């Protein structure tokens, strides 16, 4: 039987180094307190870069046959629908809370935070 995925060690060292650097970058996003669109886009870019490198190289997906790659990478695509639907739902829930609890968020939060602080003081 043919042996499995064997690749030069240098490939792994390169990716390992890259993952370290990208992780350092995504930590820097928080450390330097980037805010707004810049923050979200940087977080997502670094996240997908890291995830892609891990799946493609460490998990050998780029070297697998298309039949396997499609069977594994294809199904998670439907998660985009779930994310979309839940985002719409979350927005709607928030709007109903505005409507029924008013604009002052603190009033709604009070019972919970009181209960929490009573318990350990």
């Amino acid at each position: 039987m043919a042996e499995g995925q064997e690749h030069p060690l240098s490939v792994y060292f390169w990716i390992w180094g890259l993952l370290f650097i990208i992780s350092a970058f995504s930590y820097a996003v928080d450390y330097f307190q980037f805010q707004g669109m810049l923050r979200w886009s940087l977080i997502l870019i670094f996240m997908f870069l890291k995830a892609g490198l891990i799946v493609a190289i460490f998990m050998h997906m780029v070297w697998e046959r298309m039949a396997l790659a499609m069977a594994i990478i294809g199904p998670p695509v439907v998660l985009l629908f779930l994310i979309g639907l839940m985002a719409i739902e979350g927005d709607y829930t928030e709007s109903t809370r505005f409507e029924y609890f008013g604009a002052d968020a603190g009033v709604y939060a009070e019972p919970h935070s009181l209960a929490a602080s009573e318990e350990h003081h």
Partner: protein
Amino acid sequence: MSSVATQQLETGAKGFVKDWESDKQTFHVPWGKAMMWIFLLSDTFIFSCFLVGYMNVRMSTRVEWPPVSEIFSLSLGGAPIPLLLIAIMTFVLITSSGTMAMAVNMGYRRDRAKTAALMFITAAFGAIFVGMQAFEWSKLIIEEGIRPWGNEFGAPQFGSFFFMITGFHGIHVSIGVIYLAVVALKVLRGDYEKKGYEIVEITGLYWHFVDLVWVFIFAFFYLW
């Protein structure tokens, strides 16, 4: 096992169609590897459900989300450094992924001693990760007073999502440590001399997946 060597098969889209043709084996990999991938696929959906639920709650809550960067800060004698512990945990896990990749490589070279050693190192990093997570949890529960039903910093749902998501991931890491140790021992004993060392790659898939999930948790839970 496949009777046709992978090299003789067509690649790309043509190979994709050929592989799915009737009365044929679709995946030209050891069955254990295909099964591990399918398990990881189902695990992907579980973690996705947690993270999507978290997104939904965070979008709909009227109360400010707790300042994550401050809550997870760690002070080393001086001023608290935001997210320091989480950053160290991230690097520990990436390091373990690297040693795991080395182990897979050594396995196919049939270097039993090095393979087992690298797998034990990987497991040790995993154990360190779980230890740091235990430290983080106890800090949050005892010092910060965060509970699954509420906390003093903001939205009460913070606790439940934190414990649920990181707890589920921590269990995965713990199981991975045991899994790695068992396979490493069997490698050392020479159990795979006849069967071949795909098992190391399959174990590696699980371990890299644990690292992969952490990438998403780190981005969405700690940085967002």
